[in-house]
């Protein structure tokens, strides 16, 4: 349950950006979250509304782009989508995989006033 502190981190970034880029309020926040980032999307949405209350992003819309997790097999070289970290290589069944994407946790875009 670290979604609340992730939301607090988002709010910190918004405050810093408001100073640096000279805006007053945030209307929309777009996030990019990978399936291996360890973030529960529903909990994040709930935490977002609570944490943003009475801040510069009070009532801001939250868009979440869920990315795909991919891994490359270090034994046979195949690259494929995975759902979980412990999924085997679809080609050769090996677990010797290197995750190449799916761990991202990024603020992609803001709509501000």
């Amino acid at each position, binding site marked *: *349950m*670290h979604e609340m*502190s*992730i939301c607090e*981190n*988002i709010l*910190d*970034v918004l*405050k810093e*950006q408001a100073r640096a*880029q*000279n*805006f*007053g309020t945030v*209307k929309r926040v777009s*996030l990019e979250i990978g399936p*291996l*980032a*360890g973030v529960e999307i529903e909990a994040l949405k709930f935490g977002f509304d609570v944490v943003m209350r*009475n*801040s*510069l992003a*009070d009532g801001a819309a939250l868009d979440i782009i869920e990315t795909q997790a991919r891994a490359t097999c*270090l034994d046979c070289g195949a690259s494929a989508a995975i759902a*979980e*970290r*412990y999924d*085997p290589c679809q080609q050769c069944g090996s*677990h*010797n*995989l290197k*995750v190449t994407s799916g761990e991202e*946790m*990024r*603020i*992609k*875009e*803001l*709509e*501000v*006033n």
Partner: protein
Amino acid sequence: MCTTCGCGGDGARIEGHHYGDHHHDHAHGHDHAHDGRTIQLELDILAKNNAYAAENRGFFADRGILALNLVSSPGSGKTALLVRTIEMLGGRLKSFVIEGDQQTSNDADRIRATGASAVQINTGKGCHLDAHMVGHALETLAPSEGSVVFIENVGNLVCPAAFDLGEAHKVAILSVTEGEDKPLKYPDMFAASDLVLLNKTDLLPHLDFDVAETIANARKVNPSVKALQVSARTGEGMEAWIGWLTAARGMALAGHPLGTAAE
């Protein structure tokens, strides 16, 4: 308010760290004469934590300190293992400890009984340590050059995985009274760790615990993870762990003046 970084201390409490007034954020009704616009950020949400972690990593590198982040579920025997480890390192290597728990200073008290310095961080509602708390704890702890800093994270196999504290390695401690499938149930933590310590092996004769299956499961999520079997109670296997620690310290000292001096 903290004079170094302006933190308000409203949540986590760090022993020896002085907070003043709380910092309050008010929603001021500023009028900005801008129309709505879109800003492309592409910024890591944990960028701030990662920046503090980088500061901590610099602190450790400058002093030739090996820092380890010990993670596990509650009750895996982390503190007992740490007490035994500090005793075994004894005069060879000076140990410093940062203890993370939601409440109480019981664990720091146990560590101090060994003679090692310890600072307790109470995270309050928080479920993990972050790099900012650890940075402040380091100010109070003031670990000496060439020492080992053990950061005992909050007992939790989920949240601490995401928060870099500036450590050289995460070490996951799993006791044999837990399930073999724990690495699969909590894959992020085992993927983030460089070493798994399988603790309480003295209990194995009384359990149907499959050691090989557990290690195989950990390797499914992290093919390069190392695994050692230890018993903090009997001391069995502890020499191998001390060996790993000594090797990791050698790595931490590479390029540091202390590293050449130790040769």
